[in-house]
């Protein structure tokens, strides 16, 4: 619309020319305000509400915004649906720059307004989209209902209707322009045309029936040969597996140093009886025996622990607890292994927050699932996994300083929650 922006310079000096400029504004704004094409972009919960708003019940097409474009080159509106993280922020800026102007942005949801539920104790979330790109309309809610998004869209529409090419794109004097009458007129004309078409068609059908009373359509839809689909087989009753006491005793007969508690003299039966229902026993394994124990559990025909639920860690003052949760799909029992990894305090105190403090053997050659889980533990705690094929940061940038889930982690952007 570059040419339009020159119109005031040429036309305003001419007597009566400003009425032409006003007319140009009217037409251009009418076109722009009623076909705001959003970009298909969404990171989290708000994206689902954005999708809902474009679907059957809410029908964003009523406002001319049903054309969700996958490419920023074809979009006018950037609905920032979902939390913005520091890692995503550069991508958002790039998308914003790729959208051709005039372009508008709606910040949808609490996260994009201020950080929402992720304000305190958070190192990853950008507190407000206005820190990254200019925002036209803020829509509060967590997530906002589709109606709220529509209100935001209509607010934006009002804003566009008040634009003028004398001061292009975003600023301008408020102006009272009503296009609703034209809308209704167009809708009425359209409906009249539709009615006319229906009547004509009905007439034609009746006439055809009169002329050919014995007509039978020979049209047959072309279908691929119908296949018989087998009924989905239903599962049998699930196996129960070994009891917790049995599991532990069997494991102890092979590895005699495993214990079931760090510092308790309680008898095993009592400990198991006191466990909450369906809670597996946490077996303490020595640092050196970790790999042999996991190997044994996986390959032993009595255990058959073929399914890795999770690998995670807990940070304590002087050690990490690495918790490996295993399950046997076939036999039905599960076991939690807990390994204490002593922190390496030989490292200088000033370098401890940024250096790897523990070491343990990787089990990713036994369980492919462990590969990503161990990367997560490495990323969050700074534990080194010996023999891991691809040990990199997984959730954070590669130049991120520190390991967030350690208790002594600090970050310049982190605000403590007021107590």
């Amino acid at each position, binding site marked *: 619309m570059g040419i339009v922006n020159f119109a005031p310079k040429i036309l305003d000096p001419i007597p009566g020319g400003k009425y032409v400029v006003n007319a140009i504004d009217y037409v251009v704004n009418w076109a722009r305000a009623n076909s705001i094409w959003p970009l298909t972009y969404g990171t989290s919960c708000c994206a689902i509400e954005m999708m809902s708003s474009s679907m059957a019940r809410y029908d964003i097409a009523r406002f001319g915004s049903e054309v969700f474009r996958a490419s920023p080159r074809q979009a006018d509106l950037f609905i920032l649906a979902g939390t913005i993280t520091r890692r*995503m922020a550069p991508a958002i800026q790039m998308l914003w720059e790729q959208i051709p102007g005039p372009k508008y942005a709606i910040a949808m949801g609490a996260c994009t307004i201020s950080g929402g*539920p992720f304000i305190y104790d958070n190192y990853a979330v950008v507190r407000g989209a206005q820190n990254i790109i200019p925002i036209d309309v803020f829509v509060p809610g*967590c997530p906002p209902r589709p109606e709220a998004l529509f209100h935001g869209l209509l607010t934006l529409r009002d804003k566009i209707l008040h634009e003028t090419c004398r001061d292009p794109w975003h600023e301008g004097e408020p102006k009272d322009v009503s296009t609703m009458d034209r809308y209704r007129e167009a809708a009425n004309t359209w409906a009249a045309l539709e009615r006319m078409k229906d009547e004509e068609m009905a007439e034609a059908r009746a006439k055809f029936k009169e002329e050919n009373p014995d007509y039978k359509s020979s049209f047959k839809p072309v279908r691929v040969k119908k296949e018989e689909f087998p009924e989905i087989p239903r599962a049998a009753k699930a196996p129960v597996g070994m009891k917790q006491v049995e599991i532990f005793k069997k494991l102890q007969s092979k590895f005699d140093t495993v214990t079931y508690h760090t510092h308790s003299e309680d008898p095993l039966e009592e400990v198991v009886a006191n466990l909450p229902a369906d*809670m597996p026993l946490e077996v303490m394994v020595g640092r050196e025996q970790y790999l042999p124990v996991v190997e044994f559990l996986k390959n032993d025909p009595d255990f058959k622990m073929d399914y890795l639920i999770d690998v995670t860690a807990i940070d304590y003052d002087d050690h990490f607890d690495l918790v490996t949760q295993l399950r046997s799909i076939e036999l*039905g029992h599960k076991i939690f292994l807990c390994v204490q990894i002593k922190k390496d305090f030989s490292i200088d105190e000033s370098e401890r927050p940024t250096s790897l403090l523990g070491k343990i053997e990787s089990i990713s050659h036994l369980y492919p699932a462990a590969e990503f889980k161990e990367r997560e533990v490495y990323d969050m705690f700074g534990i080194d996994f010996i023999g891991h094929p691809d040990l990199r940061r997984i*959730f954070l940038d590669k130049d991120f300083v520190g390991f967030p889930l350690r208790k002594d982690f600090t970050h310049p952007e982190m605000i403590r929650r007021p107590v």
Partner: protein
Amino acid sequence: MSSLPPGFRIERDTNTEEFFINMGPQHPSTHGALRLALRMDGETIVELVPHFGYIHRGMEKQAESMSYLQYIALSDRQDYLTAIQNNLGVVIALEKGMGIGVPEKAEYIRVMLSELGRIASHMVFFACFGGDLGGQTCLLYGFKEREMVHDILEEVTGSRLTTNFFRPGGSRYDVPDTFIPRVKAFLDHMEDTMKDYERFLSKNIVVLERSRGIGVLSKEDAIAYGCSGPVLRASGVNFDVRRNNPYSIYDQFDFEVPVTYNGDCYDRYTVRIAEIHESMKILRQCVEEFPKDGPWRAKEKPVRLPVGRYYSEIETAKGLYATYVVAATTGDKPYRIHTRGPSFPHIAALNKMVQGYKISDLVTILATLDPVIPEIDR
């Protein structure tokens, strides 16, 4: 794939060079902020490397300074399609620590809302699967019935998506009187609509050609990569937490666990459609046996957990959702909460599934995994 006659494709002995394609983080068919780096040979995928973290929000760090009750609200935002089930997973772990029971009516409310959430999530799968294959009409259909579930959820919990409803010992509120009639009406409507849906997509020639024999995940791989839920069951593994480790009152209902054995995209689709039917079966039983009187929550107690480690696992619409709570001091704040979401292992197994298939098949495979990225990154 298989329908092409032999000799249709001309095999050329030419020198080809591999190249990389970047997909995401903003891409309509990665279902969120997921980035995939693809190593391609022509149009064939040689290797896929997923890059996470574009929506890593540091929930686990934040949870350490929150109270247990506040964390229930955060769990909504992990897998927002099954928010109500995530609430249940966290609450069950807390209940194990507090050692309180749940009255029968509360259990019924839990099961019913969970199953409604499962149906809603599978409807989104249906919509996105069709949409990713090019059938934009499916998007409209899938979201149509989903709005009815949202109406019920909104009436009961006060929120459409992020419900934050269950509490240790029961739930925040009792259900309104209109709850049961509404669920009944929804089921009656859904029974008919499902026939339309299946006629619409299940035997559609485009769907069959683009999903059968595509993205095959063998039984061994599915177990080794830690897949769960419909992805695991489509590979022929009979594993459903509702059946293998029944939580809440799932052991009292008569329902079946659908299992298919090919492990391809079409099987993952049929398993989910069959699961909607099973969920409706459970809901029918709930509606009939719903206790009219009786307490809807246990006596309210401050949420304080004794020292220990607590674990719960539930079956959400996506698969195994486990919550691991570590309480180092007796109090209302956790020392650490860890969530095991079902989508993370699925994306880890994606490389195994796409190798040798075309880039357009990747979209189909990704759609049938039904991942939710914020739940991977947390």
